[in-house]
């Protein structure tokens, strides 16, 4: 009995201790609960939201690129595509096979989709096919109920209605690369495209717009449960170019298969109405992604379709440079317009002989005759008198050898040599013979077709330093167009050159008389140029100089022509360069003529802003 009493007492004591310990531990749990849920609560609330809330970017529609009349040069089109949601499909491989009956989908593509499906979570849509035709898309829509997991979907893709006709100016978009990343999270969206060349690249930020944001709730696997709220983005802005789509189209057709370029600009405003470079290329191909073969074909083509020759092609200007030499000479007062220089067909300097293109010689030449008939000997002579540095200074005033600052990338600045340049470049002194060669636009001198157009515009507008531009109105460039400055070039020199150019294409002895515009109200004034690509050897000269059509293509002369029109009240300047085209008068001048006719016809048809007369332009002489 006593023992049992002991046992009972011990039990009571021990049970109380046990219960007390349990009470203490439960209190500990409550304290921990208080710590987590009250003291640390804010921090955990934040973590919970970080867990569950994802920000999804809503890509804004890209701004369109328009021509000066509002025609779309780049827009966004519906991209009919098919996506697959694996978790809704009973058998992905079978579904794909059934789909292949409806749309082109070869075994390789099907395998690619299958691989992708395995990599992704089963609720993530995988793109099966893109850029379907409407018929294909409609077919998929009809059969979709029988194809579990298949979902027709409409996305947006960049489209270029004019294809290769505008590609060099408008550019193209492509997948974002490492160096495109600017911190804008939009760029990290899969499938996002950014401008890679042309206006698409230089005005990327403007066209892109601002991303919208959708806050979505996601579960632990990343599946979107619902949208919490959404802030719409800002669509990209439309951009209007000075280009005229119809003119540009016409120019591209004119240049055709040649490796050539042409520029048309308004001589008063600098607006570039046409900027053609052939051959073109399909900008859409870059958007979708080029195949290796297509890339090799493009880069391996000797006619270099990817290069915008109008701004990046650098050529010896040939005789088109003679206006510069003439003005340099007149301005320096070293030659009077009436001064006669005798052309015997060549001149000798030391032991070197410099030939005129006319082997028999032109006889006595005044400056107007010399430009009109493009006498080389005359310009050898006056270039020698003026010197290379003065020539270079005048050339710079007219925009040669300096970047024009046009709003598309990859512009080259050509080369206007000086004594200093040669010394720095080669360490050798300038040779007088090099001045002679430069005097007829050969040797070191290199220009771009755009610079030639600028030069012509500045001559035709009476010596205003007009700058070329492609963008009509955007906050960036719109109101900042200032009155071009008058250049320090004598009015007499300009008038003489303008008159000489009139004669080139309007008097029977002129080099471009054959390419004149017969409607005198549209008449053009121009200057031919033929620049030698190969060196003609003395032996060849003594025997017989090979004609261009006897030479392989890449050794033929470049054909150049610059012009403005109408002669009576100049408005448009044009330059044409046909690589290895032969002579300027036969290969380039007719193209320039057709272009100038077209642009004037467009103006007469009252097309867009071409018809609008700018008061400030009229005020100038």
């Amino acid at each position, binding site marked *: 009995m006593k023992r049992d009493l002991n046992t009972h007492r011990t039990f009571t004591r021990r*049970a109380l201790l046990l219960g007390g310990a349990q009470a203490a531990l*439960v209190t500990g*749990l*409550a304290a921990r609960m208080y710590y987590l849920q009250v003291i640390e609560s804010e921090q*955990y609330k934040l973590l*919970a939201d970080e867990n*569950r809330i994802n920000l999804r970017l809503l890509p804004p529609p890209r701004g369109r690129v328009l021509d000066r009349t509002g025609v779309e040069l780049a827009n966004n089109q519906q991209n009919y595509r098919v996506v697959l949601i694996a978790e809704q499909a009973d058998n992905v491989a079978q579904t794909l096979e059934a789909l292949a009956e409806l749309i082109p989908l070869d075994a390789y593509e099907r395998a690619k989709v299958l691989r992708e499906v395995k990599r992704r979570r089963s609720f993530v849509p995988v793109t099966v096919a893109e850029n379907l035709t409407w018929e294909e898309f409609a077919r998929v829509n009809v059969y979709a109920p029988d194809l579990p997991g298949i979902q027709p979907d409409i996305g947006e893709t960049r489209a270029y209605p004019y294809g290769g006709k505008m590609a060099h100016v408008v550019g193209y978009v492509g997948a974002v690369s490492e160096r495109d990343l600017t911190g804008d999270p939009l760029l990290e969206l899969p499938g996002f495209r950014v401008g890679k060349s042309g206006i698409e690249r230089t005005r990327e930020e403007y066209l892109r717009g601002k991303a919208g944001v959708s806050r979505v*709730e996601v579960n632990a696997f990343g599946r979107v449960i619902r949208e919490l709220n959404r802030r719409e983005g800002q669509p990209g802005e439309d951009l209007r170019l000075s280009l005229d789509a119809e003119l540009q189209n016409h120019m591209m057709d004119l240049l055709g298969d040649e490796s050539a370029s042409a520029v048309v600009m308004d001589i008063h405003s600098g607006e570039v109405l046409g900027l053609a470079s052939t051959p073109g290329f399909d900008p859409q191909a870059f958007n979708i992604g080029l195949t290796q073969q297509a890339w090799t074909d493009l880069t391996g083509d000797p006619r270099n379709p990817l290069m915008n020759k109008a701004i990046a092609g650098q050529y010896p200007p040939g005789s088109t440079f003679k206006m510069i030499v003439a003005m340099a000479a007149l301005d320096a007062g070293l030659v009077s317009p009436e001064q006669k220089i005798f052309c015997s067909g060549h001149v000798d300097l030391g032991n070197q002989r410099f030939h005129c293109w006319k082997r028999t010689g032109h006889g006595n030449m005044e400056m107007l005759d010399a430009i009109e008939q493009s006498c080389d000997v005359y310009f050898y002579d006056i270039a020698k008198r003026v010197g290379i540095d003065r020539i270079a200074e005048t050339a710079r005033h007219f925009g040669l050898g300096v970047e024009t600052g046009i709003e598309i990338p990859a512009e080259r600045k050509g080369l206007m040599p000086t004594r200093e340049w040669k010394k720095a470049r080669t360490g050798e002194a300038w040779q007088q013979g090099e001045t002679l060669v430069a005097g007829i636009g050969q040797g070191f001198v290199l220009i771009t077709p755009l610079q030639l157009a600028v030069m012509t515009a500045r001559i035709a507008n009476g010596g205003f330093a007009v700058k070329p531009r492609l963008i009509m109105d955007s906050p960036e460039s719109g109101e900042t167009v200032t009155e071009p400055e008058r250049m320090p070039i004598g009015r007499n020199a300009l008038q003489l050159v303008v008159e000489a150019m009139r004669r080139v294409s309007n008097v029977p002895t002129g080099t471009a008389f054959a390419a004149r515009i017969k409607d005198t109200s549209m008449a053009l004034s121009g200057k031919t140029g033929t620049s030698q690509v190969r060196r003609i050897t003395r032996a060849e000269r003594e025997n017989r100089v090979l004609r261009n059509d006897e030479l392989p293509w890449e050794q033929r002369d470049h054909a150049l022509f610059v012009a403005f029109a109408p002669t009576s009240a100049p408005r448009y300047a044009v330059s044409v360069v046909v690589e290895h085209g032969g002579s300027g008068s036969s290969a380039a001048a007719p193209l320039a003529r057709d272009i100038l006719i077209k642009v004037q016809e467009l103006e007469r048809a009252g097309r867009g802003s071409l018809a609008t007369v700018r008061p400030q332009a009229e005020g100038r002489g």
Partner: protein
Amino acid sequence: MALVDDRRNEMTFFQKVRNTNWFLIVLLFLTAGFGIAMLYSVAGGKMDPWASRQAVRFAVGASLMLFVAFVDIRIWLRLAYPLYAIGLVLLLIVEVMGEVGMGAQRWIDLGFFNLQPSEVMKIALVLALSRYFHGLNAEDVQRFRWLLIPIVMALVPAALVLVEPDLGTAILLFLGAGALFFAAGVLWWKFALVFVGALGAIPFVWDRLHLYQRERVLTLFNPERDPLGAGYQIMQSKIALGSGGLWGKGYLLGTQSHLNFLPEKHSDFIFTTLGEEFGLVGGLILLGLYTAILIYGFAVAFRARSQFGRLLAVGVTTTFFLYLFINIAMVMGLIPVVGVPLPLISWGGSAMVSILIGFGLVLSVYIHRDIPIPRRPGLDPT
């Protein structure tokens, strides 16, 4: 005397019903109801797949509990050892079949029911140890040789469960047995010895732990060291609890659990959903229910006239306490993650039924509290 004995020793059904501790039953029902409501929530507001089946199990378990409660306590004394033997055999069967199964084989498939022998053993061990200590007098309990048998009795099933492997249940068995030894009056210094011995065994045990178990211990001290693996559970669990705040996000509105950030949200980690949706207030209400159940369990023990009843009540109650403490401490990041369900709340049949049967025994102790039981069979108490 005979009349008194009759009244005390043989009770009518009506007497038993009147004698039942209905308040404890109400507490158990409330807690289980809370659990079913939580299972409804973690299923995204659906009875399927958990809440409805849990309700059925609770109904079955509660019936068993009442049946067990009305069976005379002396019958349970008599059955204590046989039940323990059955439990051991079942554990051995699992051990043999475990080689066939994958990973941890803890169940025996009975077709309609997956029996978890370790759950049977939780009750059987308490019964067996209660019976053993009931048979010892105060002096015997002090003697070491009398302790050898119960030590073996406790260690064998604990070891069997440990190799399953089910660390949580093994700890539960070990600590539950320890509590019984303590309540029975085993001397203090012996516990101190075991404690020191346990400290000394830590390196040895560490070597024997599974890799994932070591990970769990290491991540307890620094959950961020493995945020996608072992640390993920505990991080997300703390986020769920902490973000619940004082009042919680509201019933069915817990984002952590509904968006599947929480693993095991319906079983071992269900307390986090509760904490997320009902906040500190909800957690304290559940702790309050548990505490009330614990107090009633101890109260039953103090009212019992036999040592067997007292030890049985304390043993079952302490086992219940160990369940809830280990589970809640685990989800709050206080102890490593071990597989122990939240009693009466977590999804799972065996644990629910074994807990209810355990409380059936406690109720039986209460109903038959005044029945004296001789220390040795056949001997009348004086």
